[in-house]
């Protein structure tokens, strides 16, 4: 499996130590490193196959693919979230410590908040039941689902993924080490529903806050051209000295972006947009 991050790397991120490279405008907080070890559900073979399939969704090129972004770790944390010592389903708040407080004049200060995202938040009774059903299905939930008799049983994500990966490995035992074409073929052989599930989990993992296990070093955000979480500084500051709002020159609010467009639309992307517009009965304006 290509360059899955090690647990050491994951923990390094969780500590906040890797944040500086993710957001060049900011420096990280120096929060202490919590000794976190999360349980696993997937076997090594299953993790290898999953890495190949999510890389079929978001493949590596000059920028990392899904597995290098930590999407496999992200998914395994989700699958074990309700196990003892499982990772939180909901990160805390309000701040991650990746951006500083503003100074009195609105400029970035050197003071960073603690990383509240590391303090996971609990589930209430309704959420606990809902997540149990989602992850373990009706058969793994005491009392099952409320409408099993009428609508059929819920199949849990753990069983669904294990079945999906087992079938993929049966067809392609060397899937974990397959090349681009092999990964794409394995992905294409899945059902539409399973492909959709993997796309959604890949997007969740690649572009969520790094505390959830994916988006290592903020590389998913960088790939998407997204600044990441920016509070408490944000994009508009209040200059208490002048009593006026100000904006950051590098991230303008009310003005156009400065400098050349690093990723202007090309013919391939224009064609996608044009086809979508035509399909929806829209138009290209001349």
């Amino acid at each position, binding site marked *: 499996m290509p360059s899955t991050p090690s647990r050491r790397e994951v923990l390094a991120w969780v500590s906040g130590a890797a944040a500086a490279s993710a957001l060049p405008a900011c420096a990280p907080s120096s929060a202490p490193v919590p000794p976190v070890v999360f349980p696993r559900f997937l076997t090594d073979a299953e993790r290898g196959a999953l890495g190949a399939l999510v890389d079929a969704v978001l493949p590596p090129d000059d920028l990392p693919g899904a597995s290098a972004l930590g999407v496999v770790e992200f998914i395994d944390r989700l699958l074990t979230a309700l196990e003892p010592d499982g990772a939180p389903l909901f990160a805390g708040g309000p701040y991650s410590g990746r951006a500083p407080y503003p100074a009195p004049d609105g400029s970035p200060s050197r003071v960073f908040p603690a990383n509240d995202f590391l303090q996971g938040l609990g589930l209430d009774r309704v959420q606990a039941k809902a997540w149990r059903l989602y992850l373990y299905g009706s058969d793994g939930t005491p009392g099952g689902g409320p409408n099993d008799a009428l609508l059929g049983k819920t199949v849990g994500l753990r069983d669904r993924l294990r079945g999906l990966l087992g079938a993929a490995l049966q067809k392609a035992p060397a899937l974990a080490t397959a090349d681009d074409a092999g990964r794409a073929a394995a*992905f294409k052989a899945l059902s539409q529903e399973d492909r959709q599930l993997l796309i959604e989990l890949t997007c969740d993992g690649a572009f969520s806050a790094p505390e959830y296990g994916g988006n290592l070093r903020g590389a998913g955000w960088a790939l998407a051209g*997204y600044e990441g979480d920016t*509070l408490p500084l944000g*994009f508009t500051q209040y200059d208490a000295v002048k009593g006026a*709002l100000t904006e950051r020159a590098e991230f303008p609010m009310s003005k156009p972006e400065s400098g050349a467009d690093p990723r202007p639309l090309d013919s391939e992307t224009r064609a996608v947009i044009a086809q979508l517009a035509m399909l929806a009965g829209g138009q290209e304006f001349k």
Partner: protein
Amino acid sequence: MTPVGNTALTTFDAIVIGSGAGGSSAAYLLTKAGKKVLILEAGPNRFDFLDAPERQPVSRFGQDELKCEHRGFIASNELVDPRSFRNSPADGERLLVGSVNPLPRTVGGGAVHADLKMPRFMPQDFHLGTDLAGRFPGTSFADWPVDYDALEPWYTHAEKVLGVSGLAGADPFEGRRSGPLPMPPGSPMYLALKASDGLRRLGYHPFPYPMAINSLPYDGRPHCADCGLCSGYGCPTNAKGSPPVTTLRKAFLTGNCLLYPETRAVKLLTNGTRTEVTGVECLDPEGKTVTYRADMVVLAASPIEDTRLVLLSGGFGNGSGMLGRNLTFHFQTVAIGAFEERLHGHRGKTVSHGFSDFRGRPNDPDHPLGGIVEISGSSGPITVSKYSAEILTLLQQFDGPRFKHVVRSGAFRERSMLLAMQAEDAPQPTNVVDLDPAVKDLDGLPVARVTYRNHAFELSAREFYKPKLLEVLKAAGARWGLVLPADEISGSAHVHGTLRFGTDPKTSVCNPEGRFHEVGNLWNADGGLFPTSSGFNPTMTIMALAMRVGAAMAFPGNPEKALSQ
């Protein structure tokens, strides 16, 4: 679960069911008038120090797209708390079971996740019965029992309590104001300025959207830093004037209020003649049954859940037969423009500008009743990457390299502009909430069933304004434009009706003060009262009206007395 507020309180003048825009506003007025109030909220509390006088509350939300948008941090969950849906009884018992117009389940309700766009309704919105009743078969347009002038002081009061920013008079169609807005507009979004240029060239009138979001430090809360993750998110900084940090906090600080989170009201207990509510049966955070009692009870859990609770309690107070009927949403028409240029619509408050030119006038074929149009941009990278994949799948072009290429280009995130029209949804007595005969929630209780079909009234308005929305996108500089298909099930979080108020007990559930005609101590204080939906975001009107309801409870016959307190 930790109660919030004065835990020494043991007896109450009023129980308020639901802590969202309506319930919190009624509780604010009641406690300010010295009444002792117990608030029952089904969802959890995601704030600390809401009742601490010496410090500001701390939000446990964050700029966390996964938590708020994709893991349902404060959302209702369709696996354990679903609703069912059908267009009409001809569909059988239901067409589907799942997520049907759910509102957030948390202390502060839907007004926590909303970006709190706060326009007032126009004066014409209060008398559409006079203008339209009988003209469109199947509809039930009715006048409100209060008009704009009666509600105006409550609008002004609510704007001060919440901290609304904006520019009075900038919308040429708005009604008179007795005072300015508390704060000037915040920073404009670049895409909104581009759209505004185009709108002015077409003769329209864009304006800074009134929003309960601090543009400057206000009432102990900071200015908004325009983080971009606003609509659909709780505010990490409390710059957004959501109920927990405004109306609820003010209620707690009186010492007259106690709130139990994670406490689901499941039955209203009544006297033998069903003319008084004697108690509220609840499930506590562990699922155990507990009963609370007070002299007055306020329903404010959203129109659909209010109706469900009354029906779970036997369906009393319904001599008019109107309970659950005339359910309305806003009929949304969304146009999307794609630009070559980067618009960075993910920076800001989701929306900074809008225009009311498409609200129209009753019985004017050249200006049919549509609604206010919000100008917005994109959302976070998870959401946009998912719908980028959906688009490629729809076009049968999905493969990994192409998907990544589209995500990297920012085509659907950095270069798009959305125009969302919140149009009048004609009331129909056949659009109704009742109990599903078979589908249950996690506690074994029947869920709400929504029977709803759009009327030709709003469908024709959509067709009228579709080309005009595309014209606006073109004028703003878009290269491509399209109008999304209409929702088959309304996706709007603007929910109204089912407990319509009016002067005639034969045609309405509640009286002009918001009390059930037939139940002496039961009130409604949310969008359930609305006879018509208007074409403007409803939260400001819900809160102004709920404050008036709270005042009517505290000062029977003279609610305006509360304004001079």
